[in-house]
């Protein structure tokens, strides 16, 4: 079942050189991105994968309320202007087109209630 991803915790005893006190390093391993957050296959999906997965997983995208391509364009511009995502104008247009088609107000599925466009 892909929903059940599991990570792990490791506690390593480490001997400090200066004091002979036993200290601990704590580490965890995070599971991979969850399959339910995968982008729908449609023309343009590759451009979205290339430009929209460096800072966060795609469940950020797929769980949002449905808005049209024009309003998705606003969200893509936010990633560029507010968070400095390095995305060309041409790619930004393809991304908004894809998002408007796959996760737009006409797309169906997922969260249906009308959304307020975000600037």
């Amino acid at each position, binding site marked *: 079942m892909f929903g059940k991803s599991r*990570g792990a915790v490791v506690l390593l005893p480490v001997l400090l050189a200066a004091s002979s006190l036993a*200290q601990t390093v704590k580490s965890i391993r995070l599971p991979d991105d969850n399959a339910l957050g995968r982008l729908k296959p449609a023309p343009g999906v590759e451009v979205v994968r290339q430009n929209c997965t460096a800072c966060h997983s795609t469940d950020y995208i797929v*769980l949002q309320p449905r808005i049209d391509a024009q309003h998705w364009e606003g969200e893509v511009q936010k990633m560029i202007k507010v968070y400095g995502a390095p995305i060309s104008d041409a790619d930004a247009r393809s991304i908004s087109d894809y998002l408007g088609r796959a996760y737009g107000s006409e797309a169906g599925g997922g969260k249906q209630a009308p959304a307020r466009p975000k600037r």
Partner: protein
Amino acid sequence: MLPRESWGGASGPTGAETDPALVGRPLVRYPEKADLILLTSRPPQLETPRRYFQRAITPNSAFFVRYHLFPIPTRVDLGTWRLNVAGEVERPMQLSLEDLKSKFETTKVFAVNQCSGNSRARFVPRVFGGQWGDGAMGNAEWSDARLRDVLRAAGLKPGALQVTFNGLDTPAAPGVPDFIKALDIGRIMDDPDVIVAWEMNGQPLPMLNGYPARLVVPGWYSTYWVKHLSEITVLDHIFDGFWMAKAYRIPDTPSGGIEPGATPTRTVPITRMKVRSIIAWPENGSRVPARRPVTLKGVAFDGGYGISEVYVSSDRGSTWNSAQLGEDLGRYSFREWSSTCTPARPGTYHLMVRAVSRVGESQPLEPLWNPAGYMRNVVEAVHLEVV
């Protein structure tokens, strides 16, 4: 009248069957965590299932997880981790966890940690952002050093105005602003319960809840509770970083709400939590037999005055009966409530809950709205099918 768009209980492992906010959200298991409801994988954001809110204390393993940036710390070496105290202070300090434990008096406080955007998925019109159900909150007993003692040890210079807090999480790209939050000096020095915590519920913090130490700002939304705390900087001016000046702001109106769909003219940073109550049991849509008592359970809390009353209605809000309150764990804590009713006849019953704080603040019957989806606290309802 039943409030629009209010969803109380949930059924099934996540509640997705009766709660649209949880559709498409699997249960996942992360290190040191129980099965929680996934919001996002990277950075991990995990929601606490509703059934945990029958009890005043949220177990560490079930406590929700919120991050803004990726990468997050997955490995911390206490041999090298230091809490740096710098800026407008007489004696900058680099404190190890041992220093914190040995040099400062320890204190404990039960306090609710609730994300500003808890329940954002229920806003109408819908708003962008983390589409949380109601489980981006939890209550724990936090312990350790008072922040004001730490600042006094460093010695505040006369011009000190604000203090900023930074953690070990760092932006993935240079354009992403680091997650840094600020509090006024007065908020810290006047309140002995603002603490640097390295224990929750008597245990070291789980990694995903901020190991080895986090800020605890009782009564205020989680955005100030900086995790993996590593830098405390005293400023002689007002901090204007992104996460204070641009994000986590609410309309500057008495309620923090505006006309649904409108744009606020002026905004201010979000601070104190609104009074709220949750029906954790029974699950929404439960079938129960007529003429048998049903016990409703949940928790109530507010932004630091404490809960004085919780009322329950079984007739869409025409009449309200006092619920029984559980032990008082202090003014910042979840307060358990319970109420037993016996439905006389078969049919659909709408059960509603409403808390009142010690200063008389209560919950609205109509949800307030703002564009960021913050501070939801509308009266909740669950429906029961009595057969």
